[in-house]
């Protein structure tokens, strides 16, 4: 029994550690890429202490930032609910770490018994993934509410509304893949994509786009970063957080990004599948990470180029565009999977989905106009 616990720990701890360290790298990557997009240079000037080695390309910037965070004063507002204020960042981090462990991330050193455990525990991994990520929403609300700050609360409410709304297209688009594979198990989903990835089917492509957009909103990334919009509600729910608690939020957010992109890779990009994996199994881990970083690059790119949405646009997009489209996609995929005639169904599916997306976007555009204020007049 203790063995099992140790096995579990041995499986999950490295995963958490790997991603936590990648977090640092990712922040550096994001700042660099953003800087290049905005025609700046970005962090480039942190030297290794006590050495004269200066050419680090700013790689040590995250370390410096992290250090700064750790030594900063932890401020709790006077009227805040101290317990929940403390609980919120933890609750934000823990689910993110938990869901990371649900990914089909084959550690190179894992032996057969470990894998067996892994597989058994994750019979309905995808479902659990969604269940656990939904806890994140609570953390956000808790942070916003416990801070006793109007901006925080507004940010928290916005975040909750947004996450709840986008969870539906997220789940529905994932359901397409689940339907195709017939299992909720991450491993089986990856195995099913050994020949071709789901992204290379019309419904898979559509599902991926929906999933990707919804995942941006789920993780409060630009252009859906309204809950933490600096210019509107001064960083939203973590306005009142500083120091280590803030760092936890930050970490939790990036881990969520890893996790949800990891799920995207699992569902649509064949997980760790890739060239030479058959010959060298350890490569699957590399492929997995590479795919995640490919997606993360796109996310950063989007952040650098796309402006932030308005609240009403955000909600309308989720309910009036993504949701109908994902439901339609579910139908289309069902038909396509049933008929089993790719030469016939694929063009038709592509056509239907394209027409639907086009029509829905036209409908959306029809309503673009001056915003009507319901309570602000």
């Amino acid at each position: 029994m203790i063995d099992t616990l140790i096995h579990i720990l041995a499986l999950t701890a490295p995963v958490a550690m790997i991603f936590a360290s990648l977090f640092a790298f990712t922040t550096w990557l994001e700042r660099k890429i953003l800087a290049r997009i905005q025609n700046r240079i970005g962090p480039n000037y942190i030297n290794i202490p006590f050495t004269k080695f200066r050419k680090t390309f700013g790689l040590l910037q995250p370390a410096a930032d992290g250090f700064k965070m750790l030594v900063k004063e932890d401020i709790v507002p006077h009227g805040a609910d101290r317990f929940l204020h403390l609980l919120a960042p933890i609750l934000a981090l823990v689910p993110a770490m938990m869901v990371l462990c649900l990914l089909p991330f084959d550690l190179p050193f894992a032996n057969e018994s470990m894998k067996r455990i892994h597989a058994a525990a994750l019979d309905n991994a995808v479902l659990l993934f969604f269940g656990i990520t939904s806890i994140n929403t609570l953390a956000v609300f808790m942070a916003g509410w416990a801070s006793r700050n109007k901006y925080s609360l507004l940010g928290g409410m916005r975040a909750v509304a947004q996450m709840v709304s986008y969870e539906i297209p997220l789940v529905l688009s994932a359901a397409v893949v689940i339907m195709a594979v017939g299992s909720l198990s991450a491993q089986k989903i990856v195995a099913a994509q050994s020949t071709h990835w789901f992204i290379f089917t019309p419904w898979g492509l559509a599902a991926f786009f929906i999933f990707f957009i919804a995942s941006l909103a789920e993780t409060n990334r630009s252009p859906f970063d309204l809950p933490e919009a600096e210019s509107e509600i001064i960083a939203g729910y973590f306005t009142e957080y500083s120091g280590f608690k803030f760092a936890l939020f930050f970490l939790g957010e990036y881990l969520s990004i890893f996790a949800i992109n990891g799920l995207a890779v699992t569902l649509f990009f064949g997980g760790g599948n890739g060239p030479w994996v058959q010959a060298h199994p350890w490569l699957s881990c590399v492929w997995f990470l590479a795919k995640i970083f490919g997606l993360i690059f796109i996310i950063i790119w989007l952040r650098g180029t796309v402006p932030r949405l308005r609240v009403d646009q955000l909600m309308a997009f989720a309910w009036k565009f993504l949701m109908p489209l994902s439901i339609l996609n579910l139908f289309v995929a069902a038909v396509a999977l049933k008929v089993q005639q790719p030469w016939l169904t694929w063009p038709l599916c592509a056509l239907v989905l394209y027409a639907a997306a086009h029509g829905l976007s036209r409908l959306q555009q029809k309503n673009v106009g001056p915003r009507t204020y319901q309570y602000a007049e």
Partner: protein
Amino acid sequence: MIEQVAFYILSAVAVLGALLAVSRRNLVHGVFALLLFFAALSGLFVMLLADYVAAVQVLVYIGAVGILLLFTIMLTEHVTGDDLRRLGVRGWFWGLLLAVAVPAVLILPAVLNEKSAKAAPIVVAQGNPALANNATQANTVKALGKVLMEKYVVPLEVLALLLTAALIGAVAVAHAPEKDASGKDTPA
């Protein structure tokens, strides 16, 4: 051994969560306590090898119901969530009495009358459910899906209809009246 420990821990958490949920004056705290209760119950479901139900429990109760409750609190009470109102002593007395009496009526027969507790424990329930890896449990999700889609397909559809109706009904009920005669918005 470990499962007994787990059971008692989870039971304690569940009871504690439930008690807090019904007794806290602060509604938001109450909601979080309730969520704790849900989580504990989800753990109990896992222990009972109903891991799909557990996942659904997490998804639905923690992910959706909790959020809904929080939203409602935000839309009705003060955002601080403090609720200072209670019944008087008499209400307490009767309420407590009944709240004790009803479970007592349910439990007492089991305790007093040994014959009624004849349901034999099932042997499979040995060991940690998460590690008891046999065919039935591995296929729980699939089996559930099959049953739902074959035997219970009509109730499932009715359920879908019910959910849709509830969705529309909730929106219709909660939607603010458009504009009243005076041309002003009714404050929501």
